[in-house]
């Protein structure tokens, strides 16, 4: 029973990864987008050495979140356009396995983009972003964005205005992750005393919404 669940999950995940490795559309556009956000930020905030520590965490997370949403919208929409989602639903697959596979796939795609983007950021901003403490923050934050994003991307894919709806639905809900991730990143650059437990907040967010999203996903895909 349990083994079947993980096999199904693995099969869907492997299919998504293989598809993405062949087309490379989502990864390249997400990566380029993340880099372009940095360039825009550079003009918008006129970065100097004295304000990089204040602006860099924000720029980093804005780029990650926007790039994530771009990718999230694509992966599910492709599934809908080709009609493969209907076939997937016809298979005797647990809906929770579909959700978890899509979630893992999205986390993987976003992480690849982040791995490429982080060193570039560190170089361009001249900040030591590659410090060890950043990895858990980025991973947990990405997981939080992907948990909410996967659920709502599936929902938005069923509507006509999917590109418009996705950010409108996702941004308000991920406010806690945004605040916590930006603050935790900032605390790495400029350590301050009495910093609230930001990582704990992201972990709590991830656990709560992983449960709620896994349970409610079936209502989003079934018509």
């Amino acid at each position: 029973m349990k083994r079947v669940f993980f096999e199904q999950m693995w099969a869907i995940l492997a299919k998504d990864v293989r598809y993405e490795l062949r087309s490379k559309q989502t990864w390249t556009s997400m990566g380029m987008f993340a880099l372009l956000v940095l360039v825009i930020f550079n003009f918008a905030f006129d970065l100097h050495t004295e304000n990089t520590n204040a602006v860099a965490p924000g720029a980093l997370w804005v780029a990650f979140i926007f790039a994530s949403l771009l990718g999230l919208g694509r992966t599910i929409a492709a599934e809908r356009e080709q009609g493969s989602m209907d076939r997937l639903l016809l298979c005797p697959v647990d809906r929770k396995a579909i959700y978890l596979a899509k979630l893992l796939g999205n986390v993987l795609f976003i992480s690849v983009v982040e791995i490429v983007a982080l060193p570039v950021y560190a170089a361009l901003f001249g900040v030591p972003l590659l410090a060890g403490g950043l990895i858990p923050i980025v991973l947990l934050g990405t997981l939080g964005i992907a948990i909410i994003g996967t659920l709502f991307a599936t929902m938005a894919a069923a509507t006509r205005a999917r590109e418009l709806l996705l950010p409108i639905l996702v941004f308000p809900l991920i406010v806690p992750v945004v605040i916590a991730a930006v603050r935790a990143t900032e605390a790495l650059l400029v350590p301050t005393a009495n910093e609230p437990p930001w990582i704990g907040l992201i972990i709590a967010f991830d656990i709560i919404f992983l449960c709620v999203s896994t349970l409610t996903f079936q209502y989003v895909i079934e018509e």
Partner: protein
Amino acid sequence: MALANKATTEVPQRQGTRPTRQRSLPIISLVLGVLAFASIMIAIPMAFLYAQTDVVQGPAQRIFYFHVPVAAIGMFAFVVMAVASIMYLWKRDERWDWAARASAEIGTVFITLTLITGSIWGRTTWGTWWSWDPKLTASLVLWFMYVGYLMVRSYMGRTSASANAGAVIAIIGVFDVPIIYEAVNLWRGLHPAAQVGVAGALPSDVVLTLLVAFAGFALLYGFLMIQLYQLQKVQTLAQRLRATVEYDIYV
């Protein structure tokens, strides 16, 4: 079945529309409406004439009698929406969905009014239309969730997929609001904004006025809830009828 006596032809009904005895609803709505109107009419002179002027804030504080009840009911409406959504997913009865959507529409208006009245008060007391105070920020995020919910519902039309999507948004939202509040609180915790709060007991005339205003807006919520619920129902039935007519034309 309930439609049969309205001289309409058979309407394809999905699960849920059982014959309902809702004749009493319009009367309840009327009573609630009259009571809401009366108590708000009492609350207005009370707020301006009966309640004492605040020593620190002056007359600007009087907006408090409308701001606080409207804000509380705007948030309460979200809880109603989430509970109705959970009931919808559980019972699969579309009447719960109508209730959820009705509550969302009222909640959106109430939170909008909260943001406007709060902003006016902030301008006179804080000297700024907006500050990123935890309560303000959380209310704004709540407003975005309401609007997102209504947008999804209107884009997806009156389908069961739309009802499911709405229910999921409401459930995710109701879990998220406390976390958002906590996060914003921690975020601003390091930079305390100018807090204008009156510690200690409020004078009795202030409490009484607030209670009357509270009752008025709670009754107004009940009145609007029934009205919008009926509107949702009529719109759904009308659309279903239209679908049958179109079907007859094309087939």
